[in-house]
């Protein structure tokens, strides 16, 4: 007899007849044995030889090293590369979910052409030849019409050499418009630029600090380089090493970071600057500041006279007269005793480090909060010391393009000489496109970014896209931005291509990881690097001679040769060897394991990359490049800019020429409108950091663990507030701002301030995978005006009302 009973049918039969079975003397035990014999696995997993390959994660700017387990030609597990200095074998949940990106059922399988219109796109699969030909034709035509400068490229934060290639491509083609997504560190970067005069990466020695005072930074939820930050956190709290470091989190909401900190200080939203200055008051009045550092390396601390003999207020006078503890307590709603204690702890536990103000991974905070917070570092002499604030040295070869923000080409669409900050602010692109000034944008290339979804003014970006005649996206998935494109040339995902990344944000050492592809492409996608090289070849002329490389690999090899030529640093090794290398390098020895560029290349592939593990402290000429050559409490660059922009004084409610405009100060808080009594502050959560990841089920399942919310947006509200409004936990409610409203499920959360509600970022996609099209994007309810004139996006909160749906 051919016994073909499948397990389900058998169990149905067995379940239905359970009573009968029991009565007839057949035991459940016997049933189970029979069941085991019948069980046919529903999913058969093919076996194959096991192998391990290295790669690099690009799901956030950190670029952690990956170690991928292969079974035959399949990738079955992603782990951390133990040699990689950024993550040392650890990984965050996003990186671990990488295989769901690679094998995602909703990936674009080949180039797509929009044969409908922008309003109602219809996608048709086309060949790569046709796709590349279409782009080449358009670019050639624009160049022939002398409109090469009207092409712009928007890119995300992944890849460094890749970015170098993009910029080289654009420049040789004749366009200055290489733009990048804003980063959550832009606020701190702005402070470093205005007070220290540097535009290289800000970095912190987190592991070495003894006191970390974070002003609303989501330290453990995706800020900077998440895994290396978590590693530092683990090191602070290692019982064997002794628990020396205290971590204080100042923010209105009990975030996961606040819950994990040693102390959480709840303050009134938007008053970070006042608190920082209150702490400065304690440091100054109690003599806890670094008198020598302040005297020798800073400018604007004492009252001073300029060249014209005009008297100026110093930082000390401002703080002593306007930020007395009672005043600060009234502004921030933090008791005086706590401010006093924070000030004393910050002054006495050196090295102490202050970071902020209020940043998420994508959205920078208020400029003056950042200036006030960074001033604390200068006050206690925490610049350029172990455990303090540092400035990362550039990578060999960076001089070619200049780091982000040093754009030598004129006529950038959004950036001009008169701007305060030296980098181009992407949030200004929509206005530039819509106004057609200084010129009309003819073509836009988007790579590794989804600005329509993640920018605070994404909706305006979407409107602006409609005005651009030719939009090309390189996204491997359909997303909010690529849905508006004319052409999508899907990029490979991480494991299918040559991966590389440089030092992540906040990481103090120059670093370059490189890894070859781990497996064959799953679909007919192509590495954007190779696509650009093909475009360059076909376009010919200057572009072809700037990018003569046959493959992306060849380009990377050439960049590695530059690292070799710099004659410094080491390939990735164990932390033990790293300590030794560092010791010998400090005493003037450099003993590399390689003797040629080829050898370096091979070793980089083997271990994952190269880095320079030694930080040279006290290179003052490099890290203090302000007009005074000192750390400027009174920023002279800001002063110059304010003088040219009288409207700034008016916006701040200060007299033109008021010194406070150039000194850190607490800006005026907006009044709560009567009809919208609650403040909506979007929050960034680790699984969906940067607004990406909602299409990955692994991440959806863990996103709202602290309020037991999964697969959907939620609104956090304090139960007291909810009771007053007659709302219950789990109710569907409308959240309404002057810009619009959204229906969300309410979650009681004791960690929310009674006058504030929160919604997570990353939800509310309307395009692409059905898994990602859930919930609401809070940014769509938030006006995004703010300090645009200063070159920093703002507008990440708004007033709302909440009522039952």
């Amino acid at each position, binding site marked *: 007899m051919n016994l073909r009973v499948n397990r389900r049918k058998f*169990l149905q039969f067995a379940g239905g007849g359970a009573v009968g079975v029991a009565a007839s003397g057949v035991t459940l035990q016997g049933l189970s044995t029979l069941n085991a014999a019948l069980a046919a696995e529903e999913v058969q997993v093919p076996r194959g030889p096991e192998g391990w390959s290295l790669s690099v994660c690009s799901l956030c700017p950190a670029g952690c090293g990956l170690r991928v387990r292969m079974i035959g030609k399949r990738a079955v*597990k992603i782990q951390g590369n133990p040699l990689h200095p950024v993550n040392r074998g650890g*990984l965050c949940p996003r990186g671990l979910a990488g295989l769901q990106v690679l094998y995602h059922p909703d990936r674009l399988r080949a180039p797509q052409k929009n044969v409908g219109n922008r309003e109602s796109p219809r996608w048709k699969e086309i060949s790569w030849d046709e796709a590349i030909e279409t782009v080449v034709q358009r670019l050639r035509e624009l160049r022939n019409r002398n409109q090469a400068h009207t092409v712009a490229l928007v890119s995300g934060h992944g890849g460094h050499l890749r970015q170098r290639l993009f910029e080289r491509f654009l420049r040789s083609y004749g366009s200055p418009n290489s733009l990048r997504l804003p980063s959550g560190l832009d606020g701190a970067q702005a402070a470093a630029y205005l007070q220290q005069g540097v535009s290289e990466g800000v970095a912190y020695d987190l592991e070495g600090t003894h006191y970390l005072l974070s002003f609303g930074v989501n330290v453990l939820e995706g800020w900077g380089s998440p895994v290396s930050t978590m590693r530092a956190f683990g090191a602070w709290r290692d019982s064997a*090493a002794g628990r020396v470091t205290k971590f204080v989190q100042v923010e209105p909401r009990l975030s996961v970071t606040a819950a994990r900190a040693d102390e959480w200080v709840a303050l009134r939203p938007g008053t970070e600057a006042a608190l920082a200055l209150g702490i400065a008051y304690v440091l100054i009045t109690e003599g806890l500041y670094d008198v020598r550092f302040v005297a020798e390396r800073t400018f604007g601390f004492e009252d001073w006279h300029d060249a014209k003999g005009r008297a100026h207020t110093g930082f000390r006078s401002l703080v002593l007269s306007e930020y007395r503890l009672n005043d600060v307590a009234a502004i921030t709603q933090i008791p005086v005793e706590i401010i006093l204690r924070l000030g004393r702890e910050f002054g006495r536990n050196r090295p102490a480090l202050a970071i902020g103000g209020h940043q998420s991974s994508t959205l920078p905070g208020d400029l003056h909060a950042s200036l006030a917070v960074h001033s604390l570092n200068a006050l206690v002499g925490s610049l350029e010391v172990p455990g303090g604030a540092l400035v990362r040295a550039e990578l060999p070869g960076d001089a070619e393009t200049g780091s982000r923000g040093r754009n030598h080409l004129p006529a950038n669409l959004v950036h001009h000489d008169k701007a305060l900050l030296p980098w181009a602010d992407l949030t200004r692109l929509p206005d530039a496109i819509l106004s057609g000034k200084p010129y009309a944008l003819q073509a836009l290339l988007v790579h590794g970014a989804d600005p329509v979804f993640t920018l605070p003014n994404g909706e305006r970006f979407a409107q602006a896209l409609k005005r651009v005649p030719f939009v090309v996206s390189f996204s491997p998935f359909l997303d909010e931005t690529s849905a508006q494109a004319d052409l999508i040339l899907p990029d490979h995902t991480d494991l299918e291509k040559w991966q590389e990344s440089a030092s992540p944000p906040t990481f103090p050492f120059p670093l370059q990881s490189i890894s070859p592809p781990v497996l064959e492409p799953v679909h007919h996608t192509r590495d954007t690097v190779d696509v650009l090289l093909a475009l360059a070849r076909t376009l010919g002329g200057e572009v072809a001679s700037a990018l003569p490389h046959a493959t992306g690999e060849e380009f990377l090899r050439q960049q590695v040769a530059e690292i070799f030529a710099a004659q410094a640093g080491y390939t990735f090794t164990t932390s033990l060897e790293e300590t030794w290398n560092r010791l010998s390098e400090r005493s003037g020895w450099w003993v590399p394991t390689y003797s040629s560029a080829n050898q370096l290349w091979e070793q980089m592939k083997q271990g994952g990359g190269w880095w320079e593990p030694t930080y040279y402290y006290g290179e003052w000429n490099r890290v203090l490049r302000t007009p005074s050559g000192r750390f400027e409490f009174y920023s002279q660059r800001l002063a110059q800019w304010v003088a040219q922009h009288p409207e700034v004084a008016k916006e701040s409610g200060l007299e033109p020429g008021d010194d406070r405009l150039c000194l850190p100060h607490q800006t005026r808080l907006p009044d709560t409108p009567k009809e919208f009594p609650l403040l909506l502050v979007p929050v960034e959560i680790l699984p969906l950091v940067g607004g990406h990841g909602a299409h990955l089920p692994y991440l959806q399942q863990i996103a709202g663990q602290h309020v037991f919310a999964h697969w959907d947006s939620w609104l956090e509200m304090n139960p007291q507030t909810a009771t007053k409004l007659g709302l219950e936990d789990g109710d569907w409610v409308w959240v309404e701002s002057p810009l619009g409203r959204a229906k969300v499920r309410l979650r009681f959360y004791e960690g929310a301030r009674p006058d504030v509600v929160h919604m997570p970022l990353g939800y509310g996609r309307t395009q692409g995978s059905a898994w990602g099209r859930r919930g609401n994007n809070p940014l769509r309810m938030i006006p995004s005006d703010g300090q645009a004139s200063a070159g920093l996006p703002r507008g990440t909160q708004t007033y709302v009302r909440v009522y039952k749906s």
Partner: protein
Amino acid sequence: MPRWGMVVDLTKCTACQACVVACQTENNVPCVEPEQAALGRIISWLKVLPEIKGAYPRISMQLMPLPCLHCDSPPCIRVCPVGATGITPEGVVRQIFARCIGCRYCTNACPYTRRMFNWYKPNFPGELQQALNPDVTVRPKGVVEKCTLCHHRLMQAKERARAEGRALAEGDYVPACVEICPANAMYFGDLDDPDSKVAGLARSPRAFRYLEDLGTEPKVIYLTEGEWAGGKEKPRQP
């Protein structure tokens, strides 16, 4: 014979949930659809359990990674009518999926709610099947599943040690969750070896066992949160 156990240092844990996803990818745990998740049917052998106390602003939130605690005296085993679950000589509370008849007595008996029922056919749409680990069975609909302490890794480690003609050494066998922890907050090893890292930590005055008054004798041991020692100098890094 080792007695495998885990120590989770709650002071070092950042609540990032990397352990949760590492476990799911290692063990072919299927993701359920959103509607199914809303019914509380997400399968996660390891989850991070939040506990919030107090009212704003005097409030604290504890986040605790909670795998199967591999009790020495497990309530779940006693209720299984078919012997589908048991405890191995090395102390691992195991589940023989093929023997399970899906009665869910054990899911009710476990005080830590660390046993999950497969309500649906395992769903790995499209290419996602490619990412399945061949070392771990994909559980069919209708059976209960739970943490195995990555038992397949133990098998492999033993095989490797045997091939190299040596005894199993500390660190040869580590479950996926412990291996990935970015803050190094989890430790794993032989609790019966007095010199092992975990045995040392288990003797710490900070050590506690979750709901231990139930008499379950868990082999996952937690270290309570310590407090900031207050400004002592620590030796400088070179």
